[in-house]
């Protein structure tokens, strides 16, 4: 059960019926992998560390650059040139010393994905490129681990939960079958406003807390955020039986 310190620290979320002490214990016993410690990974990791998720494994091979500071709110001017995951781990540990944090200071490849995804309860995709997103999606499907996808550029964001434990859950590849000519856009080429990332990251963190505390989370629903017109849209999708990744 919870210590009296934990009861106090997390009292505002424990007082929610749907969380309670039981939910807080589930969070404490949970492990989460966050792939990417950029504009999405920063706020996602901050909320999960603050909420008392027991173990965070955070992965990023990049160094902090001055152009990151406009949106990657964990980092300061003094942190430039440090590895993002390592630097984030320090800051997160300052927020919550009870959380165990493991750093992967390189980009996720097949081997790292296989190894780390096997160790966690939920995987959060905060990567800045579609190749990593496809890789993480596939390994999550193989290992039947819930996958919380997020992406944002410009004023727009996309968010999807894939839950391979459910036989009818579509995967990211069902939604966007891989194409060799996929658009080569990322933050370097199209721009992004920080708060748009916060909207998607907030939703990713929320979905993750719900998954970890056994609250029903809608899969097969693509959440689309249009920050320019201030609109959310939901699209429903179906598992594609001919999907190369999750189909039979």
């Amino acid at each position, binding site marked *: 059960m919870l210590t009296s310190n934990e009861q106090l620290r997390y009292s505002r979320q424990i007082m929610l019926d749907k969380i309670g002490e039981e939910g807080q214990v589930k969070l404490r016993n949970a492990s989460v992998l966050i792939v990417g410690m950029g504009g999405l990974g920063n706020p996602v990791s901050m909320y999960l560390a603050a909420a008392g998720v027991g173990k965070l494994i955070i992965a990023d091979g990049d160094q902090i650059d001055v152009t990151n500071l406009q949106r990657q709110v964990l980092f300061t001017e003094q942190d430039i040139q440090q590895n993002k995951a390592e630097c984030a781990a320090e800051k997160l540990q300052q927020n919550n010393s009870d959380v165990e944090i493991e750093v992967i200071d390189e980009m996720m490849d097949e081997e790292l994905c296989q190894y780390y995804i096997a160790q966690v309860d939920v995987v959060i995709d905060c990567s800045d490129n579609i190749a990593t997103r496809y890789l993480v999606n596939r390994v999550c499907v193989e290992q039947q681990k819930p996958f919380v996808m997020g992406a944002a*550029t410009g004023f727009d964001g*996309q968010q999807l939960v894939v839950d391979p434990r459910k036989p009818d859950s579509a995967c990211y590849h069902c*939604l966007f079958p891989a194409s060799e000519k996929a*658009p080569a856009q990322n933050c370097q080429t199209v721009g992004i406003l920080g708060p748009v990332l916060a909207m998607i990251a907030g939703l990713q963190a929320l979905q993750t807390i719900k998954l970890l505390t056994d609250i029903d989370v809608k899969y097969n629903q*693509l959440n689309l955020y249009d920050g320019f017109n201030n609109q959310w849209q939901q*699209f429903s999708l*179906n598992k594609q039986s001919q999907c190369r990744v999750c189909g039979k």
Partner: protein
Amino acid sequence: MNIYLNGQLTKLAEPPMTLEHALALYLTENDQQQSFAVAVNSDFVAKAQYAHTQLQEGDSVDVLFPIQGG
């Protein structure tokens, strides 16, 4: 006949029209080569169904591309 294509009111040149035909007419060649998803009235339509989906007056057709950044 009018549909909404990504929210824009669009008059279809030659109704009746399938989704496949409309995509061929209204998406740029570059767009058509990329990975995208299509929803009609907020429900995704599988690629194999594009040719069998007849558009109706007032349908909302949304073409989505994967966002890359994070």
